[in-house]
């Protein structure tokens, strides 16, 4: 069986779904970040797949690399935020960091 574009897209969709689920359901800030990483990577898979099968040259891969760099910097900043969150509230549960709500 030939592995085609569809398979990549399905994988990507499953990955996106898992990422989204993690994003929505988890209370732990680090797990939410991991959900985001999953979503970004789902998008990366799509970009790479379209780059390969779409006949558009190397553009897709270039964007993927940008995204990976972006994800790294995002993770660095986000983890720093989480660290500060923990220092301040002694927890990483996002539901409990609600002092601005009231």
């Amino acid at each position, binding site marked *: 069986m030939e592995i085609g574009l569809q398979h990549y897209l399905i994988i990507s969709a499953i990955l996106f779904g898992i990422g*989204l689920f993690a*994003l*929505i*359901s988890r209370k732990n800030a680090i797990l*939410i970040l991991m959900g985001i990483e999953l979503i970004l990577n789902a998008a990366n898979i799509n970009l790479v797949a379209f780059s390969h099968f779409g006949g558009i040259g190397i553009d897709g891969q270039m964007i993927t690399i940008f995204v990976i760099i972006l994800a790294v910097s995002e993770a660095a900043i986000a983890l720093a935020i989480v660290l500060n969150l923990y220092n301040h509230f002694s927890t990483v549960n*996002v*539901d409990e960091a*609600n002092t*601005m*709500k009231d």
Partner: protein
Amino acid sequence: MDNTLHYLPLVILLIPMFSFLLLAFFGNQLPRKGDFIAVTLLFINLALSLFVMFVFAQTGKYSFTVDWFDLGKGNTSFTAGFVIDELSAIMLIVVNAISAFVHLFSVKYMEGDAKYKKYYSYLGLFTFSMLGLVLTNNILLMYVFWELVGVSSYLLIGFWYEKPAPQEAAKKAFIVNRIGDVGFFIGIMIIFLTLGTFNFTDIFAGVAAGQLQGGMLTAAGILLFCGAIGKSAQFPLHVWLPDAMEGPTPVSALIHAATMVAAGVYLTARIFVMLSADALTFVTFIGAITAFISATIAITQNDIKKVLAYSTISQLGYMIMAIGVGAMSFGMFHLVTHAFFKACLFLTAGSVIYGMHHIQDIREMGGLRKKMPVTYYTFLMATLALCGIPLTSGFLSKDSILAATLAFAHINGGITYIIPVLGFLVAGLTAFYMFRLLILTFLGEPKNMEKYDHCRESPFQMTIPLIVLSVLSFFAFFSFNPFSADSGWIMQMMKTPESLLTGTRGIIYHIVDREEYTELLHHAHYPAMFLSLGVAGLGILTAFVFYFWKKVNVDSLTEKIKPIYNFSLNKWYFDEFYSATFIAFTMGISRLSAWIDNKIVDGAVNGAATVTSWTSTASGKFDNIVVDGLVNLSGGLVGFFGLVFRKFQTGKIQTYILFLVFGIIVLYFLFR
């Protein structure tokens, strides 16, 4: 003639006004409250009036007119002005002379009164008003001064307004005068509507041209005369004058002799030429009836001033009657002579009251001749003049009037013979009541010894005016012939003018031309003289028999004729009659209109208020329930939805993402 002399009457008019203003505003700062200024100014005024008279005698009639105001362009313009003719020149002297002597007399009489300054300023105002009335050549301006006279008389009659009686008297005088003034005003309006002018000369020209004639002319004449009925206290509006005695006695002298009551006679004399035959009939009968009624009342009065008051009314009736029968100049002549001796009588009465310490009842007097000789002799002189005894001024004027009534009756015949009969009757009655007054006051035995012992002759400020005025009651000042005034200066100067309606006939009156009338007058002169002397002598004799020699017991006589006596004593019940009819009627109407006001008008107003209150309650309810309900409802709805939707607004990003995902899915399926 010198032009500046034209302004002299204006000066004469304004001097009393100046005196009034000066005393009213600065009287308290001046020494003696400024009375000497008022007295001096009035004597200067008298001198100026005499000068005006001489100028007039030299140059004749002249008038002075300025534009007063107009009612916009193209409309009638109104003028103001004065005229010096024989009427106004003589009246100027009379008014100023009496006023000056009254001013002088009051210095002592009113001494120590709390309102001394006010008294003198009012006198100035009164004199000013009367002079204005006399001088003006314009009937509208005359009406203005006429009302000013009314106001100032009101102020002076009610001078002692702390007491209730002067208040009532002042109000009565003012209101009764107002009734006559309504007629006067309507008369003026008729003249203005038909002739379009207020100027006397133009009015007479208009009447002569026949622009106003027939019934309208009669109505106008009678209505104008209504003003005179009020001011000159003629029947049926004479009731104010006796009550006006509540004022200070010198004021009574001024009102009764020169100022107020003379105004009516003066007005009638002014409009004499335009009075139609029927109007003259009316004037004649009013005058005769007035003279008779008040003479009968005067007989029984016991207040010294009341007797004089009724005698004034009676003499005014004579003057009006004289004008009515066509002898206008005799009426004016009697006004002049009467002014002097009546002022003298009132001032002597004032002197007696002053001496007796405010006793006015003649039953408490008697024997004052020894205590007050000057007062007695001046009073005697004036009384003789009033009774028409020869060698006095009163004889001249009264006799002329009686002769005129005889001539009048001779022309018209029939019912008109009642006029001379009444005239001679009144002459007799006058002699009787004046000598009754004289005997009871000055002769006989003193009744009230306590007062009598304290009584003294009045000081010279009071006796000098008395002496001067009584001397002026002597015939020589008016005519050198003691039996006829025809050659005297007054009668030479003041001829009765030819009526504009000569030759016309009324119901019982025939206006004949002057020559014919004068001819008849000459024939009537001697019969009238002897008749009047006879009745006057009879009256005096009766008075002496009754009160001096006491041949007849007066008390038992009055007991016998009790009803007639009471009828006279109570003044023919005029006041009672008016109270029971006109006043009761007016009060009834007032009460009715008060009731209408209270119940119906107020009821309507209250009803409207109630309805408004109901409406506003209802609209308030509507506002509270419906409008506010809607507003509250919308607010409540918003609040409710807010409550619902705030549940979605959790502040948690994960929830929002969940909604986002669901939203995308829903949209996907919707727009697939």
